């Protein structure tokens, strides 16, 4: 057996656009093979074709050198292919065991849990995984939930495992554990396809296939390449990772948050005693694994969530509990993390989205009516200024790419805000070119004298952009550090819940 899995000439088109164009790919037994590329490069499409979620238009898949036809996940499972999806496919209300065995029993009325338990126990022992089969999945931390996903595949005797962006939701420590497990799996003869866009992970693989715009650019042995070369292959041009940030002296305090506490939907504390301040010419970075209160913090700061306690002073005025409209009037700009649901209305056109929320402004109306002429004129200016790639201002926003949608939001908020800019995950899921653009825009606002609060899950971005970094864990701030004399791993430890300056 020379290859565990081979793909020849695979082409998959969506509405005429090739997401995968004549892709060749091979996976050797016992190796970790990275699929590396930007969003939309075709990594997920390729893996979905291999797992039987999509049917390729052309091409042939071979498993253990035998040609196979994979029409649905059941065929993939039968050929020993397992997949760990980027967004976990778990039932939180089920136990670990139930999640693993649901849909796997092929005969009998009664649930046959005892046999499953035995088989799982053997698998877990083999990998040194310690997990309570009877715990509900909602009780488990994200890292453990991922184990359940992996166990689901191993329980079905997977020999080829596809992991789609597996570290996206993990802390650095959890990621290390995952790579340990992956190493053990390979030692046992499993072959792994690892989908990622993080260079640091690619470097831990055996081989890497770089995809760009649906085509294979190169397949390389990882030891024979470098992060710089891979980045260049991924983007198709030289990229500079270094962000040049001019030294600026922080000015007066713009926003001061003290003892901020907020509750979630079920009355649980989502923000606990959060305090910080941000000055003019300053970017405060918020680091943390997704779901540790960043979103709630931004919601409180922009007025859509009412705090239970604490104060927020904006230019010496108490603003805690004010409505979003009041805060917008006071110059607070907000770039939310879910751009197509909270940042804009996808069904509205570009021009409408560019004034969304500011439609009461005298410039955009004549009496009670909307002044479409004025809006159209302004929109054309903004489209040019912010380099939004659209035919004209009448295109429906939902038809634009994520990057262009983000540019609309940035244009709107930057145009209307004064003083404070809130940016939650502004670069998430964007291509390198757009990321550079967003970063330069945030630095521009900093230079103009704005106070900027920026949350990002990419620590590299935060270290490049932020003047100070506040680390959040379970709704609390673990500490605020100066990125110039802190390492990424120190922040990583705080993201896992260790307080600044403590040793445990």
């Amino acid at each position, binding site marked *: 057996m020379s290859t565990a899995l081979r793909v020849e000439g695979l082409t998959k088109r969506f509405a005429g656009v090739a997401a995968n164009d004549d892709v060749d790919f091979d996976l050797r037994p016992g190796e970790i093979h990275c699929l590396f590329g930007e969003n939309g490069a075709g990594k997920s499409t390729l893996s979905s074709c291999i797992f039987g979620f999509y049917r390729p238009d052309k091409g042939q898949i071979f498993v253990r050198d035998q040609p196979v036809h994979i029409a649905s996940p059941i065929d993939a499972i039968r050929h020993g292919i397992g997949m760990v*999806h980027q967004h976990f496919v778990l039932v939180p209300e089920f136990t670990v065991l139930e999640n693993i*065995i649901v*849909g796997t029993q092929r005969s009998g*009325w009664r*649930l046959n849990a005892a046999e499953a338990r035995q088989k799982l126990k053997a698998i877990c022992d083999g990998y040194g995984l310690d997990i309570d089969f009877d715990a509900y999945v909602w009780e488990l931390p994200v890292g453990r939930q991922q184990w359940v996903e992996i166990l689901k595949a191993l329980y079905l005797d997977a020999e080829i495992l596809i992991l789609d962006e597996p570290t996206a939701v993990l802390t650095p420590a959890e990621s290390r554990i995952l790579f340990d497990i992956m190493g053990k799996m390979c030692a046992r003869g499993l072959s792994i396809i690892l989908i990622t866009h993080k260079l640091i992970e690619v470097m831990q693989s055996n081989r890497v296939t770089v995809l760009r715009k649906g085509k294979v650019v190169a397949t390389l042995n990882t030891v024979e390449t470098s992060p710089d070369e891979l980045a260049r292959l991924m983007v198709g041009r030289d990229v500079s990772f270094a962000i040049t940030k001019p030294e600026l002296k922080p000015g007066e305090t713009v926003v001061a948050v003290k003892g901020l506490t907020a509750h979630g939907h079920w009355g649980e504390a989502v923000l606990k005693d959060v305090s910080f301040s941000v000055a003019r010419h300053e970017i405060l970075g918020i680091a943390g694994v997704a779901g540790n209160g960043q979103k709630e913090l931004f919601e409180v700061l922009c007025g859509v969530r009412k705090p239970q306690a604490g104060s927020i002073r904006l230019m010496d005025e108490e603003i805690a509990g004010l409505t979003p409209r009041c805060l917008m009037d006071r110059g607070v700009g907000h770039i939310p993390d879910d751009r197509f649901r909270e940042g804009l209305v996808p069904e509205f056109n570009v021009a409408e989205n560019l004034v969304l929320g500011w439609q009461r402004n005298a410039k955009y109306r004549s009496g009670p009516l909307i002044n479409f002429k004025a809006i159209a004129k302004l929109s054309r200016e903004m489209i040019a200024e912010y380099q939004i790639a659209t035919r004209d201002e009448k295109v429906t926003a939902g038809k634009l790419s994520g990057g262009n949608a983000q540019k609309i939001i940035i244009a709107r908020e930057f145009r209307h805000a004064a003083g404070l800019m809130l940016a939650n995950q502004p670069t998430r899921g964007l291509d390198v070119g757009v990321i550079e653009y967003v970063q330069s825009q945030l630095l521009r606002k900093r230079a103009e004298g704005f106070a900027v609060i920026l949350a990002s899950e990419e620590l590299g971005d935060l270290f490049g952009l932020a003047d100070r970094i506040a680390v959040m864990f379970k709704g609390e701030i673990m500490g605020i550090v100066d990125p110039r004399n802190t390492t990424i791993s120190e922040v990583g430890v705080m993201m896992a819940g260790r307080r600044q300056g403590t040793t445990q």
Partner: protein
Amino acid sequence: MNQLFQEAIIVSILAATIRTMTPLLFSAMGELITQRAGIWNMGVEGTMLTGSFAAYIAATTTGSLWLAVLAAIVAGALMGAIIAFMTATLRVDHFIAGLGLNLLAGGLTLYWFQSYIQGRAQPTFSGFQDVAIPLLSDISVIGPILFSQRALTYVALLTVPLVWFLLYRSRYGLELRCLGENPKALDVKGLSVTARQFAAVMIGSALTGLGGGFLMLGFSDRFLADFTAGRGWIVIVALIAGNWKPKGVLVAVIAFAFLESLATHLQVLGAPVPHQLLLALPYLASIGLLMGVRFRSGQPTRLGIPYKRE
């Protein structure tokens, strides 16, 4: 009023509660199966109406009540197939599909009814009678309430533990609940979400149709327009009130049945309240309940959301 009279009334109200409960319970257990599979079937009312109409036709043409029961079950399953085709196969919005089904059932039953009687006097049938269980039915108070009921009442009560077992102890139940919570978790195991939802809706609707059939065969001797009179909606409220759990739904159904029989008795006893108001009692209670219910922890997470692979 003397003591004996009071006791007789209470026994009568409670016995009527159990009797009234039967159709609601069948339909609620059916809808429970459907909703736990993630399909919010708003067409309960139409399915019950069709079930009762089919039972009426079968009872008056064949004279066999058990064939009428079968007809109600088949009619329910067919209505379920329509809902399933729209929601599970075509992935139409569940509410629109249910709305359409109710309108269809209302119109079709009336049309068929007219063409069935063709201006003649409506044929009637004599429905199910109480079955007194020997010995048990002689116990005072409890006997007449619990052990002197229609045979199908006992079957209805039996569906509660059966549905519980199906949901929580069988592999089909695990798959069914998975459909409601996260259908993709079944899809990635290589199982067809559509086929399973289709089956769940048809089986559930067969039970719902049986509920409508019993409403006809246990309480009436003829068909009338809008025969079910909103009971299908009460079933949906009972599911919410019962937090989508078999036992909870049973309690909710009994509560609604109690209100209904209380209203009927108060009316007969000549309580100084307009009887329309009394008849509205269960419906008023459900409005109050829906406003009050905030705790919906048992609601299937993906209930009412058509499943699409992404």
